[in-house]
């Protein structure tokens, strides 16, 4: 009986004196917050925007395409030339959409002159994209 009482007294004393031993995690928190601030400062949420284009491989062979599938356009500084006629941006887009309704597999061939600005090239690609053209071919032309 005495043994039992001693045991329980010891057990009680143990629980009374028992301390909670926590791992000090404040340094981990500090470190994590420092890293967090670093990433907030150096990171960027801005998603860069662009127009995607897949170039043909250097050793890819040429393909024959039916003439009615081709839509040629030559951008100039202010207008777009197609079939010898000049088009504004909206007119060209309308023309492409009209042609695309008849031939959904329409291929746009962009005839680029060397002295035309990059802005016009991107604008042409943008018009093609807006009109829903999937296949674009770029043909470099030497300026006259």
């Amino acid at each position, binding site marked *: 009986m005495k043994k039992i009482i001693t045991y329980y007294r010891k057990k009680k004393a143990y629980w009374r004196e028992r301390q909670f031993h926590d*791992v000090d995690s404040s340094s981990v928190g500090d470190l994590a917050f420092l890293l967090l601030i670093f990433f907030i400062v150096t990171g960027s949420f801005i998603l860069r925007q662009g127009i995607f284009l897949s170039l043909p491989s250097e050793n890819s062979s040429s393909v024959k395409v039916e003439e009615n599938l081709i839509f040629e356009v030559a951008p100039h500084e202010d207008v777009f030339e197609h079939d010898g006629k000049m088009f504004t941006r909206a007119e060209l887009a309308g023309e492409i959409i009209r042609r695309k309704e008849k031939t959904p597999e329409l291929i746009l061939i962009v005839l680029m002159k060397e002295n*035309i*600005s990059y802005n016009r090239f991107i604008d042409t690609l943008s018009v093609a994209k807006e009109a829903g053209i999937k296949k674009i071919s770029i043909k470099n032309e030497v300026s006259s």
Partner: protein
Amino acid sequence: MKAGKFMKKLKTASMGAAMADMALLLLVFFMASTTTEPPKGVEVELPKAQTEGAEQDSLYISISNKGEIYFDGSNISLSDLYDRLAMRQGEKDRIVAVTADKSLPYKTIADVLDVLKKRDFLNIVFMAEEQKKLIE
């Protein structure tokens, strides 16, 4: 039991562990969702176009309005670009982001595209400012 005795028995616990957990979670979120700025090399005025989100993991080529080519932030010639891309053949499947000034003559772009084609870097994205869709 009196309120005083009860209060004495309460132990204060720091919320350090929870704070650290939260900070680490936020850290992982920021690391996953943000991206570091790519080496620009040169400031350019981008053309406007109807764009789509470009992948962040790209090789970056910047071309100034004077035709200076910057690859990974350093100014190089066209032939240097050809050589540099030779050393990056393992990254052929990565997208090459071309950031060029809108006033640049197309010839420079054509030359760069030619080099990229020769080195088999075929996935290109022309960086542009987002423009509202003009055609409805």
